[in-house]
């Protein structure tokens, strides 16, 4: 097989052998001699003043080495930063202090107050109960809308009415459009709080060498370089003396994308004690100590003509940010939400206002999709809401409003430029799999047998390929969002690829090796992909926002081009021809039309290092470094179709069928992309049907363990039917748009639209997630009750 063909092939993953034989190296699998174990004492209150902390009993307990409070380490720990700062003047953004160990006040259940260090995990765990914290409970607020009302408890003294920011974006003139519209429909749309639930909770190990002042932090993260940078900024420990390693990471989904309190705590304690320490998060601990996602209350309004042309969309959002600003929190409900509100439609007038609100809850930040699922949910829900109100078919209305196909850039009124798109084609491909007319017949037949079926669509779009740094910087990013690569060719012609992306399940070792192998014409076994270690690779940005291939893959392409370019110079010199004459294919350098003049890749690699016959002035070695900063985001899109079945008597709602057509541009490994789509769909469907983090008014997480928060199981899904259309992006040479989040972004509106469709005949116009049996039962009962009341009123009038 020529290696060129590996692009687009279902190559089996190189990661798998270690993982299926139990040889993975996740944080808790790492060992160091003399290792100490840390357990964190956490607030049981949503909001309280700390009067006193007495650590004496804990400090004297068996096996305990030391106990640290926030006051003990105030100077060393610093304050955790928000890494995305919105324009202060226009948004009034507030950035209150965020001490890694709370000192005077705790602001959510789970807020860290002390760290116990002991010689075993059991001893550390035992001593937690012995730390006596004198709390003075304060009134708490957990609902973002209520938190902004006068008289609400204040989470931070320097953020009046708990407002972290008030951000807006728009296009055209929504109010004028609404005034002229034939029809205006409004709805309150709640996007509930979710718990990300990577199967591996977080964990950290830290080791300090007092002789060299070198601090090493192993952490289960998506962004090792940013952790190092932020750690250095926060603690003052010099960046070049910090090494951050992300070993095997058991899933992230956005919640391992920050500098966390525990990273600072463990690093500083290792330094303080000059002993290696480890902290492993328990699952119930994860539920309160690791960021949550979503939690929007949106008032949405859509307007348009009576013949189905949407002219405007208005959205006002309360975005719950939790007790503190997590690293990227300000970006999620603003940039990644507001700029998406055009969807794939020609809507000229958009108005979006977002209030970011502090509450006494676990901080909220990115969760797979991050802002884009919330936006897509509003857009796709409101499109169907509008179509229903007009009595028109949901697909007909979508088709009327679709942006026409384009290959190189389409300016949207909101101020962004989509890269390439063909929304009609994706919908068409989905309808090739799903027979819409036949379904409508089935639906009618089922209804006559007392079974409720519904179909829902989501013709979604997303912003991926994070991100053009200058654009992101102008919008508030505190770091560049480019990506880098190094391609190091060894003298024998084997290659090590270093990437700044940091995979945690995405299969970069395979995908990047496929690209390398194909470009260089060498077998995949001769390529090693290295990631997740700040000491082995220069600065990189990490893995999130479906960026790794679209940005990191392109950075790799650039380095590959550079080594090929240099190799050609060496080969040309060797062959005694002009460099321009040298061609490179399938691992061989040759000169067209001149037979017997060809040099294999390995010989050139060896020649580059042996250096006995290099062109004058050429440096020995064969290695290239590249930094790719994209000029635009990428904009994947597609059509997802969900069919649900509802038990009319109990309200139980089941996903019966799921069809997904995604357009992620060119695909390197379809097997891996399909896997990404499957997982995303499951998370989106999970949100629609069953996942929900619930707080009591005083800040207790009522869904505080896996016994109460329903992470979906295999039983909750049918097999998915997936396929693709291919519209390459012009933003990078690979033509790849990114595939990490499509499913999550598309699925929840498709499922909810399906449930509303199933209940439409009862007069139901909207449902808030999750579609729990009780909620569905109540909706059906209420709708029936209303119908009965209407009928009897009509009957009375008739009399």
């Amino acid at each position: 097989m020529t290696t060129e063909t590996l692009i687009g092939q279902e190559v089996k993953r190189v990661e798998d052998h270690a993982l299926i034989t139990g040889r993975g190296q996740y944080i808790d699998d790492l060992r160091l001699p003399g290792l100490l174990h840390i357990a964190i004492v956490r607030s049981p209150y949503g909001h309280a003043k700390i009067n006193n902390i007495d650590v004496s009993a804990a400090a004297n307990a068996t096996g305990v080495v030391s106990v640290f409070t926030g006051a003990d380490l105030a100077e060393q720990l610093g304050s955790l930063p928000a890494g995305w700062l919105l324009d202060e003047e226009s948004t009034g953004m507030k950035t209150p202090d965020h001490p890694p160990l709370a000192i005077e006040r705790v602001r959510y259940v789970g807020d860290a107050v002390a760290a116990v260090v002991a010689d075993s995990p059991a001893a550390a765990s035992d001593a937690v109960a012995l730390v006596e914290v004198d709390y003075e409970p304060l009134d708490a607020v957990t609902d973002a809308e209520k938190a902004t009302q006068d008289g609400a408890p204040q989470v931070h003294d320097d953020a009046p009415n708990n407002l972290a920011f008030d951000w807006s974006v728009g296009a055209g003139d929504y109010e004028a459009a609404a005034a002229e519209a034939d029809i205006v429909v409004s709805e309150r749309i709640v996007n509930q709080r979710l718990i990300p639930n990577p199967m591996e909770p977080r964990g950290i190990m830290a080791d300090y060498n007092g002789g060299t002042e070198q601090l090493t932090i192993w952490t289960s993260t998506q962004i090792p370089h940013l952790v190092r940078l932020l750690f250095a900024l926060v603690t003052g420990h010099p960046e070049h003396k910090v090494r951050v390693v992300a070993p095997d990471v058991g899933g992230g989904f956005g919640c391992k994308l920050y500098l966390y309190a525990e990273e600072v705590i463990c690093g500083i304690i290792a330094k303080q004690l000059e002993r290696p320490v480890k902290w492993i998060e328990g699952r119930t601990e994860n539920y309160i100590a690791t960021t949550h996602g979503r939690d929007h209350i949106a008032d949405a309004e859509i307007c348009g003509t009576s013949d189905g042309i949407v002219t405007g969309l208005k959205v006002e959002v309360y975005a719950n940010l939790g007790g503190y600003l997590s690293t990227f929190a300000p970006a999620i409900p603003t940039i990644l939400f507001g700029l998406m509100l055009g969807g794939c439609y020609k809507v000229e007038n958009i108005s979006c206002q977002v209030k970011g609100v502090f509450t006494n809850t676990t901080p909220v930040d990115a969760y797979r999709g991050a802002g884009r699922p919330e936006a897509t949910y509003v857009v796709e829900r409101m499109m169907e809401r509008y179509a229903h109100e007009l009595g028109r078919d949901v697909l007909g209305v979508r088709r009327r409003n679709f942006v026409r196909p384009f290959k190189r850039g389409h300016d949207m009124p909101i101020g962004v430029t989509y890269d390439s798109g063909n929304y009609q084609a994706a919908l068409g491909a989905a309808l090739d799999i799903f027979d819409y007319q036949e379904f409508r017949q089935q639906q009618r037949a089922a209804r006559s047998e007392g079974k409720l079926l519904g179909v829902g669509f989501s013709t979604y779009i997303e912003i991926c390929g994070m991100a053009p740094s200058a654009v992101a910087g102008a919008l508030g990013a505190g770091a560049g969002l480019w990506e880098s690569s190094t391609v190091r060719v060894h003298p024998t012609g084997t290659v090590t690829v270093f990437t700044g992306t940091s995979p945690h399940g995405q299969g970069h070792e395979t995908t990047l090796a496929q690209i390398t192998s194909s470009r260089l014409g060498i077998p995949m076994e001769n390529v090693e992909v290295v990631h997740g270690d700040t000491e082995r690779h220069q600065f990189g940005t990490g893995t999130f926002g479906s960026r790794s291939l679209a940005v990191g893959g392109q950075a790799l392409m650039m380095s590959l081009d550079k080594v090929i370019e240099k190799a050609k110079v060496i080969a040309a010199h060797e062959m005694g021809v002009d460099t321009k004459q040298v061609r490179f294919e399938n691992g061989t350098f040759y000169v067209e039309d001149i037979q017997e003049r060809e040099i294999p890749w390995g010989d050139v690699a060896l020649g580059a290092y042996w250096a006995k016959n290099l062109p004058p002035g050429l440096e020995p070695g064969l290695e290239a470094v590249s930094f790719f900063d994209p000029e635009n985001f990428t904009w994947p899109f597609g059509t997802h179709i969900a069919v649900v079945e509802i038990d009319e008597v109990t309200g139980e709602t089941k996903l019966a069928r799921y069809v997904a057509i995604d357009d992620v541009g060119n695909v390197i490994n379809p097997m891996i992309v399909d896997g990404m789509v499957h997982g995303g769909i499951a998370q989106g469907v999970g949100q629609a049907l069953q996942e929900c983090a619930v707080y009591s008014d005083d800040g207790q997480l009522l869904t505080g363990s896996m016994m109460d928060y329903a992470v979906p199981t295999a039983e909750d899904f049918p097999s998915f039917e997936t396929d693709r259309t291919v519209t390459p992006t012009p933003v990078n040479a690979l033509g790849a748009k990114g595939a990490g989040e499509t499913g999550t972004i598309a699925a929840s509106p498709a499922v909810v639209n399906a449930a509303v469709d199933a209940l439409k005949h009862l007069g139901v116009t909207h449902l808030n997630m999750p579609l729990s049996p009780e909620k569905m039962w109540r909706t059906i009962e209420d709708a029936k009750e209303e119908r009965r009341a209407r009928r009897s009123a009509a009957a009375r009038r008739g009399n």
Partner: protein
Amino acid sequence: MNVEATITINGTEHKVQVPPRTLLSQLLRDELDMTGTHVGCDTSSCGACTVLVDGNATKSCTMFAVQADGSEVTTVEGLASNGELHPIQVAFREKHGLQCGFCTPGMMVTAVQILELNPAPSEAEIRSGLRGNLCRCTGYHNIVAAVQHAAELSGGA
């Protein structure tokens, strides 16, 4: 006071002395350094820690090590024999049944028992059999395909 237990793990007999509260998962990981068995929750929900105890899929985080006294335990490290991967391991790789890999050892071990009891399970039987193993990456689609494939490889379906 420590308790004693003799447990055969992946064919090797181990005589151990541990505090009674030591869980089987902790014995495997912390005492015996067999870290292939993962711990993903503390409520017996996620199944990442699943091992076979006398052939039965078992959440090793929900069993004190001493309860396994006299038992034969098989962990993910013991699935392959003589350097040859178990059909379930082959199938997981072949069908892309794993992404981050954290749930995978427990998932495969449970699947081994599902196929042991029912060599040709239906899709519904596989899905219901895996209810005690959570995965957040794959949407289970390819895990189900992998178990079906393993059944074929083993001459079942």
